[in-house]
């Protein structure tokens, strides 16, 4: 079963978090370790971090399909910071990985307890249609 684990923690205009260097390094090391563990366990399909919200553009099709872009977002809007796609044997395993991500260390090494959105990817085999 494939799941996407989404970390919706970026806020428009918030910029790069100003953490002490050691805390940032610990956070990065945590994420690298996590990805290595998921690769070693044969569960990682893909993991990506996304650019900061100031790089984001909202695009709509205008007349004749010409793209119309908009890049000003309200300060409160949350953005996807990164995602993991994992192929696991049970939903509980996906939740366990999400909980580990949630507890990534923040300032002072304290767990961030970020909300991680877990959703199944539409990849299940369909049953026989009677």
């Amino acid at each position, binding site marked *: 079963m494939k799941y996407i684990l989404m970390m919706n923690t970026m806020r428009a205009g918030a910029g790069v978090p100003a953490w002490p260097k050691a805390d940032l390094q610990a956070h990065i090391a945590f994420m690298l370790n996590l990805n290595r563990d998921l690769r070693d366990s044969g569960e990682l399909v893909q993991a990506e971090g996304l650019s900061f919200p100031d790089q984001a553009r909202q695009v709509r099709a205008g007349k004749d399909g010409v793209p119309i872009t908009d890049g000003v977002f309200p300060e409160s809007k949350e953005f996807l910071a990164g995602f993991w796609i994992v192929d696991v044997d049970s939903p509980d395993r996906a939740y366990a990985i999400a909980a580990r991500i949630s507890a990534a260390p923040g300032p002072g090494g304290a767990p961030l307890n970020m909300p991680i959105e877990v959703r199944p990817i539409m990849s299940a085999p*369909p049953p026989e249609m*009677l």
Partner: protein
Amino acid sequence: MTEAASTSPWDPASEHLLRELAPQVLGVIARRFRDFPSAEDAVQEALLAAFRQWPREGVPENPRGWLIHVASRRMTDMVRSEIARRDRETVATPEDEPAVEPVDKMEAEIEAEMDPEDTLILLFMCCHPALSPSSAIALTLRAVGGLTTAEIANAFLVPEATMAQRISRAKQSIRASGVPFRAPAPQERGERLPAVLRVLYLIFSEGYASSIGATLQRLDLAREAIRLTRSTRALLPQDAEVAGLLALMLLTDARRRARTGSDGELIPLDQQDRSLWDQAEIAEGTALLTLALSKGTVGLYQLQAAIAAVHDEAARPEDTDWPQILALYELLLRVAPGPMVTLNHAIAVAMVHGPASGLDRLQALDGDERLSGHYRLSAVRAHLFEMLGDFQQAIHHYRTAAAGTTSLPEQNYLIAQAARLDDAHKEPPNRQAPSES
């Protein structure tokens, strides 16, 4: 290898040959070196070498000998480098040293070590209960199926490195469980065969599913499952459930070309173009099943195959012998009870005794915690309400089911069912919006 050996040209049958030889070669190497995990890696490398060289240079006269030679040389290299590594660290004692013999001398002896049971031993090993289903599937496809890691990764749409790790960890679990490389005792064989058949069936289901709108580059797992089950049946010709499973696969696969439309949309059984069903597969499946059922012990796969056969023998949907299907589901409920069997049984009840009886059955399932709230319950309910002529309820349940499935083709199907009913049975406009009345 002896020089100037004659070769034959590479053709599609050569690829089949390579895959058939893979477990035989692995059996020889694993027994010889008493190290299944490393032997499995060495055989995979030999297979990759064959896939590189044979299409270019032709298939060697003795393909099995060629593979054994290459895999043994790889094993010997690995053993030597391991000894060298240990020598650098400590002084190796003689009993630590694995057997290393000159490859040329080994070959004739190895040929004599061929055991017809090897493939069976490997199959039981790869479907070891210590492994998760996904690990067992991956390892079975590689070690017994002779597939490459890249092919397996591609079939399951995961990166090759991830699949390689999954296989490697599966082998570590087998190593840790300390299973010896030998055939399980008769009693153990009986206990563990269901797990083997389940892995084969899971491979088939995955393949049958991914054949929907799949690109040709994706490996055909359904065919691989049929091939592996065929080999298993050749090794256990007396087992009725192995035959039943092969029959089930053939009788289901026979409908492959009819079950999806030109845009990859699912077509339900009663709307399929039955002239597209593969009559050869149906005939083979039916013959296998008849033979299996004559042996007396009826099991889960034979019953499912029997149900598939009843569907397959109906020239038109209205010719389907539903009373017989209902009787088979009643047997299945006793042999292998489960929520999905109960659901399908309710459909059969509806087909024989009318949709209201089927809906009554489903009501009992609302209290079943394995099923209550499951989207399949809604899907079946929608179908039965449609049969009953209660289209508003049917639309509601089709949409509820569509929101719950994690299969994209099935979701599209369910949404389309709701839309079809909605279009055909629109309520008069003055009654459509309750706020207006």
